[in-house]
């Protein structure tokens, strides 16, 4: 789907200045810092490629807000199997605390995030059957071009989840 990809990149570049501000909702301090520095600290002219990075947002659609802390393992595929390279807890409202990987640390390849949804609801005291319908949720995705921004957006509940490439 080369045409769609080109469109996507053009869209990202075109909205780069906006993305720099809106990609971090919930982190008002950072946003205002960016504003104060006038984004000019990292000028992104039209057509320029913003630095690639991976961010995450898990939204608890059962409570309508990610009121707890979600633990997530990040694994990368290596010689056919997935190896955990990092574990993080979500910060404000289900988001990763900034970029999980950025610039040179962000590598193309096959990733698997494991969301500890069972533990999340157990910690909140949500009444569910045992074993819970979903507990550790694997989210696999491929990164073809690590110069792009990949935002993994997940809508989850005790009985469902959806994930997509956000922005």
């Amino acid at each position: 789907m080369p045409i769609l990809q080109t469109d996507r990149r053009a869209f990202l570049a075109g909205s780069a200045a906006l993305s720099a501000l809106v990609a971090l909702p919930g982190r008002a301090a950072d946003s205002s810092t960016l504003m104060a520095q006038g984004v000019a600290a990292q000028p992104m002219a039209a057509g320029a490629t913003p630095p690639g990075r991976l961010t995450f947002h898990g939204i608890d659609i059962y409570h309508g807000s990610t009121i707890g802390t979600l633990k997530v393992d990040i694994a990368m595929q290596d010689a056919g199997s997935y190896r955990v390279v990092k574990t993080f807890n979500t910060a404000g409202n289900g988001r990763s605390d900034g970029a999980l990987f950025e610039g040179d640390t962000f590598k193309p390849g096959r990733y698997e995030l494991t969301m500890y949804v069972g533990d999340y609801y157990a910690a909140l005291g949500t009444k569910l059957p045992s074993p819970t319908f979903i507990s550790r949720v694997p989210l696999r995705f491929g990164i073809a071009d690590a110069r792009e921004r990949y935002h993994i957006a997940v809508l989850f509940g005790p009985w469902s989840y959806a994930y997509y490439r956000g922005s």
Partner: protein
Amino acid sequence: MAGITTHVLNTVTGKPGVGMRIDFSIQEGDGWRLVKSVRSNADGRTDDMILKPEDTKIGLYELLFHVDDYFRSQGMALADPPFIEKVPVRFAVFDTKQHYHVPMLATAWSCATYRGS
């Protein structure tokens, strides 16, 4: 009805996902034992139940949907590696008298699953 069933939907076209390979596994110890590989039929469902009620036990199960191959079969060129490739869905059966319908709604850039009926 009890047991396990699935249904593949192509949410780009709004039509059933036909001919998608689905691998069904059962968790045993720390690993997964492949039970069978099936393909979705013309309605996006499988001709036979994934697991019959009498064979269903309390435990963890996995459906692995070969979403990338499906979209390639539809003539779509995917990134390398594709964003959505082979998607595992892991879920528990907590009451063998209940029915577990676990659909896959997929595009090349997103997927969703839920306990249906």
